[in-house]
């Protein structure tokens, strides 16, 4: 089979993994070597679905010995199979990188023979890139559940990031849809990576230079809509994962109904809006000090698809608003719909020089239409009125809602 054809099959098979970020690493170029890692990450292209392409995201093979029901690569699915050799992966990565098509490689795979065997092949790819090709670009490697910790340790020396995909948000759906993987087999590599990263941190604090180990940390992915969990269940799991194993990111992937299975829901279109709300809530947890409990209390376990999670929260807590923009503490400004981290920082900086007026406020980058309902400026309130809810629904959402209600069976 031609290399190009293999690439086509294996890109096709890798596309449902959503993580493509290349951030979090400061790997430097070495003399005579190629590449470096940019701390913020760089997007190199955007695919027809609007998603950023940063890494060469590819499977080593799509022939898997497992049979997870939701997965296009499962053993029982009738589909063309291909496998890339270590050399082929290295060659394409280097060629794409030099041309500035990509930031690096994100390698995943169906399971070949055993998790250990597959990981050993990953290790060969990573070692060849780093040692023979002196490649200093970004490498993201999948940690396959059930892999020996010793192998993960070695892989972690070369990789910038590793991820173990959780995929299903509960033990129950895991048993139903991925019977060969146990929750334990998924959690233990996460735990291992976390422990190694914590050790490295301690070494650093003791002013010793720790052995390199996944400097950009670990991430995971959850499929949304293939099983019956509520948004609240998913978000609480996310929060737990951030706390317990220090994940850098949790990615959400709206279930795309491409294959059939006895336990899979029948839906016409992937629940994209729900996925989007999860990303927003996740962001609020990581950057705005919200908790899952605040965003989705027991009384409202699912997102309002019309309003974003922050606006929802603010509407449930009308008693806290309006706040005076010239006096409210930074933490409270962050909770105002329409004010983001950037604009909150600017407000705090600018008001040191004197009271802000409504006019100058519009130029700090906040969304006035939304924020005005929750603020006073020099004691004056500009909000209220019947347009409140309408102002909070973003134009984009309104459009998306209209489009989707035409197609979507279940959201």
């Amino acid at each position: 089979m031609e290399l190009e054809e293999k690439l086509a099959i294996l890109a096709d098979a890798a596309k449902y993994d959503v993580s493509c970020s290349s951030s979090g690493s400061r790997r430097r170029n070495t003399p005579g070597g190629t590449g470096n890692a940019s701390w913020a990450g760089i997007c190199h292209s955007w695919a027809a679905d609007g998603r950023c392409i940063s890494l060469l995201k590819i499977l080593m093979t799509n022939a898997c010995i497992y049979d997870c029901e939701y997965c296009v690569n499962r053993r029982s699915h009738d589909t063309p199979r291909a496998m890339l050799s270590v050399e082929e992966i290295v060659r394409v990565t280097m060629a794409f990188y030099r041309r500035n098509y990509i930031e690096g490689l994100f390698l995943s795979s169906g399971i070949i023979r055993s998790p250990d065997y597959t990981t050993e092949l990953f290790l060969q790819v990573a070692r060849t890139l780093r040692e023979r090709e002196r490649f200093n670009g970004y490498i993201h490697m999948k940690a396959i559940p059930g892999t020996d910790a010793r192998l993960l340790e070695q892989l972690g020396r070369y990789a910038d990031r590793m991820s173990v995909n959780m995929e299903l948000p509960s033990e129950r759906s895991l048993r139903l849809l991925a019977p060969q993987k146990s929750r334990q087999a998924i959690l233990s590599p996460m735990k291992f990576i976390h422990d190694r990263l914590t050790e490295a941190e301690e070494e650093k604090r003791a002013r010793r230079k720790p052995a390199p180990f996944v400097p950009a940390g670990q991430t995971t992915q959850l499929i949304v809509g293939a099983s019956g969990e509520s948004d609240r269940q998913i978000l609480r799991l996310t929060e737990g994962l951030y706390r317990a194993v220090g994940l850098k990111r949790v990615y959400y992937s709206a279930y795309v109904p491409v294959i059939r299975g006895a336990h899979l829901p029948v839906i016409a279109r992937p629940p994209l809006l729900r996925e989007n709300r999860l990303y927003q809530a996740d962001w609020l947890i990581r950057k705005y000090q919200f908790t899952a409990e605040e965003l989705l209390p027991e009384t409202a376990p699912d997102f309002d698809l019309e309003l974003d999670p922050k606006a929802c929260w603010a509407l449930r807590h009308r008693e806290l608003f309006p706040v005076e923009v010239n006096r409210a503490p930074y933490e409270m400004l962050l909770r105002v719909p329409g004010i983001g981290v950037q604009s909150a920082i600017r407000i705090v900086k600018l008001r040191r020089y004197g009271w802000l007026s409504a006019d100058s406020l519009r130029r700090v980058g906040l969304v006035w239409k939304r924020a005005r309902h929750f603020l006073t400026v020099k004691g004056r309130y500009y909000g209220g009125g019947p347009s409140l809810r309408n102002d909070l629904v973003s134009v984009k959402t309104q459009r998306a809602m209209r489009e989707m209600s035409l197609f979507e069976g279940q959201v």
Partner: protein
Amino acid sequence: MIYRYDGTFPGFLCAVYEAYHDGTSGVEGICAGPGPAALFSRETAVQTREDRAGRVAAAFYRDCGRAASQWLYRAFLAEEPDRENFLFTYMRQGFRLKRALYAHRTERWAWTVFQWAQKTGAEAGKLLGLIRFSELEEGLLYAEISPTHDVLPLLTSHFRRRLAAEPWAIHDVRRKRAAFWDTKTMLFADVPEQADTIRWSGKEQAMRRMWRTYYRRIAIADRQNPALRRSFMPEKYWHHLPEMDRRP
């Protein structure tokens, strides 16, 4: 007095230098290049001298800090009409207000400069990802760009670090300028003629096709969203992207 300078950033700083030397109250305008003869104003041709430009830049940096200096440079590179007069006001205010310049950023003269700087910065950031090198016969990695703002000077340090060990060139075909890295020094040069001697290496065509195939296959068909793609990757950049080549 109208100050005519050569259109470069150092040239502009020299115009500011001379304006301060002559007294800023007499300034009627700073303009790039030759223009229609002014009927009622006196004109002077500004000499571009690196030492003077350096002194003005250092003074502004010392008084107003790093961020304000960066805005100044990036706003200049945005190449907006009438940039000289906005930037001159901005610098005069900066020398007067010093660090307190920040407090005035919501006023129109500062806001405009800031907006321009942001546009340039955003385009430079986007191009770090969207630049596409092609391998030429002699092994050189060569990229063509035609950005809206003059971002070439902002791009080179990134690729110097990234592709330090091999020679490369980035050619702004719109402004007819190129940056060339020979693995030791960075060279900027005017390239008046489009080189028609450019020949790709034997592997180039196949690699482009491979990338195009990858690009098409990595998209999820059920999630097609051309508007979203266009918002991240505006059509004006497609011309230089092998993945947007419509060929099968």
